[in-house]
């Protein structure tokens, strides 16, 4: 934890140096955290991406239909007012859990919409959950979830 804070401070200092708003660089989380994309459970994926973390369940809104008729394109909206460093999206319906990891520019707005493919929930016990983790610039983690049912799976092609 201390080390993370130290690194975070270092990064902030570097980011604060240029006078103008400078470009942050792109981060390819598939290259830097390959195991996060292979993980079969949300917990394992979170662990592979962030390590052992405790996320506070507040400040993150996840919106999706309670019952999605078409699993091929389930609309998901993610919002948070937390000054975020990264935002990660997971679900427990598909073979692997990770859906997206956003690298949020400094001062960036967390208001994302995307459409995702989900398997029908009756294929895995009926409890579909989308989990979003926000890594704050304060070094803390925040979590939001949305439970849903998917009537027709979208992964069968």
């Amino acid at each position, binding site marked *: 934890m201390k080390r993370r804070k130290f690194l975070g401070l270092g990064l902030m200092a570097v980011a604060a140096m240029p006078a103008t708003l400078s*470009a*942050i660089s792109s981060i390819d989380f598939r290259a830097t955290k390959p195991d996060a994309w292979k993980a079969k459970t949300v917990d394992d994926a979170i662990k592979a991406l962030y390590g052992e973390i405790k996320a506070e369940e507040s400040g993150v809104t996840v919106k999706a239909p309670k019952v999605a008729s078409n699993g091929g394109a389930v609309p998901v909206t993610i919002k948070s007012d937390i000054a975020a460093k990264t935002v990660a999206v997971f679900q427990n319906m598909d073979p692997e859990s990770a859906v997206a990891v956003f690298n949020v520019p400094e001062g960036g707005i967390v208001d994302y919409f995307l459409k995702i493919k989900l398997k029908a929930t009756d294929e895995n016990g009926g409890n579909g959950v989308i989990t979003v983790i926000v890594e704050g610039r304060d070094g803390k983690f925040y979590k939001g979830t949305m439970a849903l049912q998917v009537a027709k799976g979208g992964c069968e092609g």
Partner: protein
Amino acid sequence: MANMKIKAKARGDVVGVKVLAKHDMLTYDQAKAKGKKANFITHITAKVGDKIVYDVSTSQFWSKNPQFKFKFKKDGFKDGDKISITWTDLSGKTVTEDKKIKGL
């Protein structure tokens, strides 16, 4: 415009961007069933000038022809600025398209 449909518009202090990318987003399971090779977008970056405004690593579970939206603050951008969106897929293909931001 063959690969992406982009709409970018400033409203108040914020620019809203809507994108529809044309891509099969073939998952490993779907590819197996069809006897094809899996291929899906793995990364999307959007820039205005040299400033990154959206940067996401993606998985096979984004929908076919993925649609996505995002917002960013319009500070520092001016009339005529363009948003440039680049995606890369598993096969290594990279596509970049740009669009003028309306209302700046």
